[in-house]
């Protein structure tokens, strides 16, 4: 799971700010949005500019307009876009990174799902971390669910499917060994409950935590495998689809739609959106987060607030 990090230190200087008036940045921004769904508001263009600057020095582009050419008309434009997206989405991640999404899951979605499923006498929850990379996301979800196991989820069973395409990432995720960086947002209490010492600097997830997660290698483009994933309540797929072209993205999102139960949710990265990808999902706002809901059966959610 890569994470879009548009909130890192403001390094913009006065000259950068003047540079930002260059309309080429807006064009690059809009192009990235159309191709990947990742968006930066104008006030955050300086962050995009600093990411572009790194690539510009590599390809020796002198102006943003010249770099725009690398992204649009040069023969290697697809590769260049990918490299730029790599700069924008920082590979490293940590537990409890997307707090507003996790709060929405615990405070809004779980109560909603529990109410709906209780009515059917079906006390089981399935979460899926699609593109789980080295496992920070599924372990975070596992801790969140376990913390609710004596409260909201008393009497419920739950599990998490964690998939990735990369075997090395998956092996790392299965081992569940993390250093200070990955655990920076994890409270002391949670560390003590769900981790054990591994070596001097690292902790390892306990068997209890691991037992909630099923790791598997899945290519999201693999129709044969995707068709058989059913009954999922919530999918987290952060900054994975940005690397897909529109046609494959549409196909994957259609699969997600079928993978989800009615009323289930899909979460993307926090600067990512399903722009022109699938109109069947309902866009739902939570405090500080946006999710995509497969419409529930019966009266639609929403209404007066």
């Amino acid at each position, binding site marked *: 799971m890569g994470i879009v990090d548009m909130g890192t230190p403001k390094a913009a200087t006065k000259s950068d700010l003047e540079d930002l008036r260059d309309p080429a940045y807006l064009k690059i921004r809009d192009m990235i949005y159309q191709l990947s769904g990742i968006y930066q*508001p104008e006030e955050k263009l300086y962050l995009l500019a600093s990411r572009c600057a790194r690539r510009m020095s590599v390809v020796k582009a002198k102006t943003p307009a010249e770099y725009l050419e690398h992204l649009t008309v040069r023969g290697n434009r697809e590769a260049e876009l990918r490299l730029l997206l790599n700069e924008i989405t920082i590979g490293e991640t940590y537990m409890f990174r997307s707090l507003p999404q996790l709060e929405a899951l615990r405070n809004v979605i779980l109560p909603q799902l529990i109410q709906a499923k209780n009515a059917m006498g079906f006390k089981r929850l399935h979460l899926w971390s699609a593109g789980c990379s080295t496992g920070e996301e599924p372990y975070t979800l596992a801790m969140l669910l376990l913390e609710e196991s004596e409260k909201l989820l008393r009497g419920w069973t739950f599990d998490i499917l964690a998939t990735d395409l990369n075997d090395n990432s998956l092996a790392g995720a299965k081992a569940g060994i993390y250093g200070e960086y990955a655990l920076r947002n994890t409270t002391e209490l949670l560390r003590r409950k769900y981790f054990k010492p591994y070596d001097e600097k690292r902790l390892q997830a306990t068997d209890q935590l691991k037992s909630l997660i099923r790791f598997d290698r899945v290519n999201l483009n693999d129709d044969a495998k995707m068709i058989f994933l059913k009954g999922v309540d919530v999918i987290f797929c952060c900054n994975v689809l940005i690397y897909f072209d529109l046609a494959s993205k549409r196909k994957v999102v259609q699969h997600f739609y079928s993978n989800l139960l009615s009323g289930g949710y899909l979460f993307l990265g926090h600067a990512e959106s399903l*722009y022109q990808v699938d109109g069947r999902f309902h866009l739902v706002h939570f*405090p500080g987060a946006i999710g995509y809901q497969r419409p529930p059966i019966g009266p639609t959610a929403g*209404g007066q607030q």
Partner: protein
Amino acid sequence: MNADRLEELRPRIRDLEAMPTIPTIIQPLASALMSPPEQVDLERVIELVSYDSTIAAQCLRVANSPLFGRQNTETVRSAVLALGLKRVETILLGFCLNRIVPPDKWVLDAVTFWRHSLGCALVSSKMAAAVGYPDPEKAYVAGLLHDLGILVNTLTCTQEFRKCIQAASNGQAALHQSEQEHLGFTHCQSGKILAEQWHFSADLIEVIEFHHDVVAAPAARTLVSLIHLSDLLCRLRHLGYGYYEAIGVNLAGDAAWAALGEEYPALASVDLARFTMDIDGAMDEIVATVDAVFKPQY
């Protein structure tokens, strides 16, 4: 609504009129803010600012804040020019309204309240522009003043209102629902009474009364819908009432969305995810402006 409770409140709201702190310039300011920018009289605004030394000091402080590049502005005139008319008028209006609440009486703290109000003003005018609503200025003022009733409740039933907010915060619930439960009326109804006393325009009064119940708005449903959606968006982007509201809202499924879309079909093509992220970008300025004006200085 509990009609008796609201009737009890009426004389107390009338008494507010007698408060010496009610600035007489509120009404002219609200109408000045609503006129198109090219028709605003710069000299009149400078005069209004100079009229009150505290307000003049606030304008200078904001103009000299990091947000505006610490310009070393020394005169009211240059401060007004540096800030732009829109910001000056907003600061003026906010400051006048702010003054009717004694510092020790605030229930929602002033910074939270003004971040929400100014946020709603900005989102309303952005949304107005996005759908082609012809009067973004009016949308801005309506957004700024939609929660006037919160000030009324703060002043007329401070203790009970404190309990409302506490209960709403504990239950992660909407404020107007908590008010209904604990007070028997909401800030919509109490705000309407003061807005009428202050002779606000009819559509502004409707916004104040119906922004949580769009379908009940008799005449200005489009404007009310616009404000309703902006209010929700602010509460969903960390500019609410300062506590976590456990809500998940499909805005496109909201009655206000349908009402606004009926009048302005361009709404259907608004990319809501992108619009939301643009709002986030603009929120930094809201927060900085409000903090510069209303945060206590030590």
